[in-house]
């Protein structure tokens, strides 16, 4: 197990380096001259050629590309992502609380998504091909096809305005979580429930179940066996779902005015605040790799067969 972890992390590290490189390249594709942007951010009314040259010198913008990348990567490791072009505040101080808010929403939603997926997935797998299986799957397809912002608008209208039960937006108390979590659950449970269902079906058709039946084990025991195995599936989906949801709360956050990463990034895009965009891309990608690695390790811990695959 230990060697697996080392190997798995060994894969993650070069991945992180390449991600950071790609992020850096992406931002360097921007059509704006970084020196001019920095000067404007300081509200310097007249940007002269001299000033640009000075700034280039001072901030090292005229150094070779790789050197700049290394400098940038080194400061990122110290959580120094520069300052926002718009507010002049530290990017890290702006993005960290937003990241936490998004993470909270993601974790809470994930729990609900997993619970729903497993309940439905197991139930459908047990009755494969029956009415219930078919109808639940049909409904799930339909629900995943609903644009989340559309659903969100309707939910806000019904629960918040019409019934006056819940807040319409913001992140004031636990009640603010209810609507966004429901919308995310509806959007994603339909997807992960299919994963649970098919892995359950695979389990049911596994050899050990057949042997179990042949050797006269009671159905109850076999079911327990299957359930235990599917718990593993659940955990791995959970770990897999977190980073994906983390990266896709953008629209929901904007509808519910959730003060998270998604809103921050859309605002940054509309105000061309490149340091924020860059940090956003990097941080979410790193979180993505982090959770993926963890999920692989958890999977391997539960299923020794997987350890050989590396």
């Amino acid at each position, binding site marked *: 197990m230990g060697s697996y972890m080392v190997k798995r992390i060994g894969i993650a590290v070069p991945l992180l380096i390449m991600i950071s490189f790609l992020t850096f390249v992406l931002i360097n594709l921007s059509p704006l001259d970084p020196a*001019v942007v920095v000067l*404007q951010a300081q*509200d*310097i*009314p*007249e*940007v002269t050629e001299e000033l640009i040259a000075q700034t280039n010198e001072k901030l090292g913008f005229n150094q070779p590309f790789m050197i700049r990348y290394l400098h940038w990567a080194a400061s990122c490791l110290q959580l120094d992502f520069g300052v926002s072009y*718009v*507010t*002049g*505040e530290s990017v890290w101080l*702006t993005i960290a*609380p*937003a990241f936490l808010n998004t993470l909270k929403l993601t974790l809470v939603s994930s729990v609900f998504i997993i*619970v*729903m997926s497993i*309940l*439905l997935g*197991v*139930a459908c797998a*047990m*009755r494969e091909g029956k009415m*219930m299986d078919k109808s639940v799957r049909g409904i799930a397809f339909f629900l995943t096809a609903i644009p989340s912002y559309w659903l969100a*608008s309707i939910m*806000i*209208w019904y*629960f*918040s*305005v019409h019934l*006056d*039960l*819940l*807040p*319409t*937006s*913001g*992140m004031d*108390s*636990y*009640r603010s979580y*209810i609507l966004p979590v*429901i919308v995310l659950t509806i959007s994603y449970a339909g997807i992960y429930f299919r994963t649970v269902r098919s892995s359950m079906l695979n389990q049911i058709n596994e050899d050990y179940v057949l042997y179990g039946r042949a050797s006269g084990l009671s159905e109850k025991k076999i*079911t327990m066996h299957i*359930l235990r195995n599917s718990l593993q599936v659940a955990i791995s989906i959970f770990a897999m779902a977190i980073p994906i949801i983390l990266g896709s709360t953008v629209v929901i956050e*904007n*509808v*519910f*005015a959730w*003060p998270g990463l998604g*809103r*921050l990034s859309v*605002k940054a895009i*509309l*105000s*061309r605040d490149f340091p924020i965009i860059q940090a956003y891309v990097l941080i979410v990608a790193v979180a993505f790799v982090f959770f993926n690695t963890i999920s692989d390790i958890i999977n391997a811990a539960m299923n020794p067969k997987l350890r050989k695959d590396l």
Partner: protein
Amino acid sequence: MKKVNVFAWIGLFIFTIVVLAGCSSEKDEAANGEARAELSYASSKDINDMNPHLYAGSMPAQGMLYESLVENTQEGIKPLLAESWEIAEDGKSYTFHLREDVVFHDGEPFNAEAVKLNIEAVQHNAEKHAWIKLSTKIVSVNVKDEFTVELQLSEPYYPTLVELSMTRPYVFLSPKDFVNGETKDGVNGYNGTGPYKLAEHQTDEYAIFEANDSYWGGSPQIKKITSKVLPAGETTFLALQKGEINFVFTDDRGADSIDVEAMEQLVESNDYQLVRSEAMNTKMIVANSSRIDNPVSETAVREAIWYSIDRDTISKDIFNGTEAAANRLFSANVNYADVDLKVRDYDSETAKEVLEKAGWLLENGAAVRTKAGNKLALNLYYDTNSASQKIQAEFIQSSVKAIGMQMDIIGEESSSIANRRATGDYDLLFNQTWGLAYDPQSTIAAFTSESAYYHTTRGITQADELYKKIDEVMVSTDEETRKSIYADIMTIVHDEAVFIPITNGRVTVVAPKGLNDISFKQTQYELPFERMSFE
């Protein structure tokens, strides 16, 4: 695993959610009762840096925290932190007698020394304040005694008091909050002398302002004001409907966070009232005359756009008649603006003629005019947080399409649009004149300021003459001369059609029914919250 179990689980799950939602809503109602003496307004942007000597912060919020020496009112300049003042014969020296009962929010006394420190801190950051011409005229600030301070200018400058009355930068922050005696690199706190103090600020979520109980003008009736960051449009509308916020007003960029219909719907619901100021400014499209490689640098193209816009339809169908059509940069009732200018009414045939004459021709079958191989294509930038700007942009886009012009419309945050204006990285963008107190002198002074309309005006043929006249008018001491120079200036920019007017904007307030004494200042950038009260 029986069938019942699964559904029981799902049922329990849903039940839990409903119960959680249900039981907590009672608590909410209880809280509503106490909220009567509070206002909570929606803003699409965070209040940002409240440093009054920089430009990032929200102006209405800064207006609550800080005050200037004098105030610009309908009846002219009135005392505020200065009780009285004298202007020397030569017009170069201003002596202010300060109120003696003013303290900053942190208890520090407001006196001549504080005034000197503040004004000097502003002067030390001269580059950023170039737009406000007073900053280039101040030579020294002298403390005469504890409550008397003298401002020494390099030459007489007639808008001095007007510029001192502005929301920023000549307002006062407790010297204790200065960092190394300066404010240009950030400050330690936001203690002004204004009627409200900043109590709490959660970036991108909310900011809470509390009444300043030791305010020299008496503690304001509204004890607590919350500025809540909410996306414009229906999120704000819903929050108003539910009472999560109870106040919205036209923001400092001239954007209303909800549209006219939504406002009317709120008023119909009987919980809200709608209060509009008189016409405050002119909303317009600003054309970048200095973009040489773009058609917008041609007067004919700008004129054609002017002719092609049906302002009456915009006023009637987009603003539901709440804003009147504007046909000139400054309406005739603005000081010095009663000038004879060429009338350019909506007429797409004239627009086409103007373009034909300038050599922009429609090749057979083409939808867009060309000239020497160049397409008649322009970009128009609008503020994404303004519902009406987007609709106007779409409307104008289709209007100019009819005369063979291609217009791409691009929505961005207001900070990005301000940035484009400052760097000249635009063809056309939405803007507004600076409002009653500032028109025409400050708006015209801004023609020469890089961060404002320098790029707009630089490309016109008479640019140098224009700038010379602007310099002249600001230091002229004779009313008649001033009048004639202003007339020249307005004629030049009108003929060049660099400011394409659309409507006369107002400040609109949606407030709870029982709120009284909603009034307006002479500026669209501030609201006098301290005068409001509940029944």
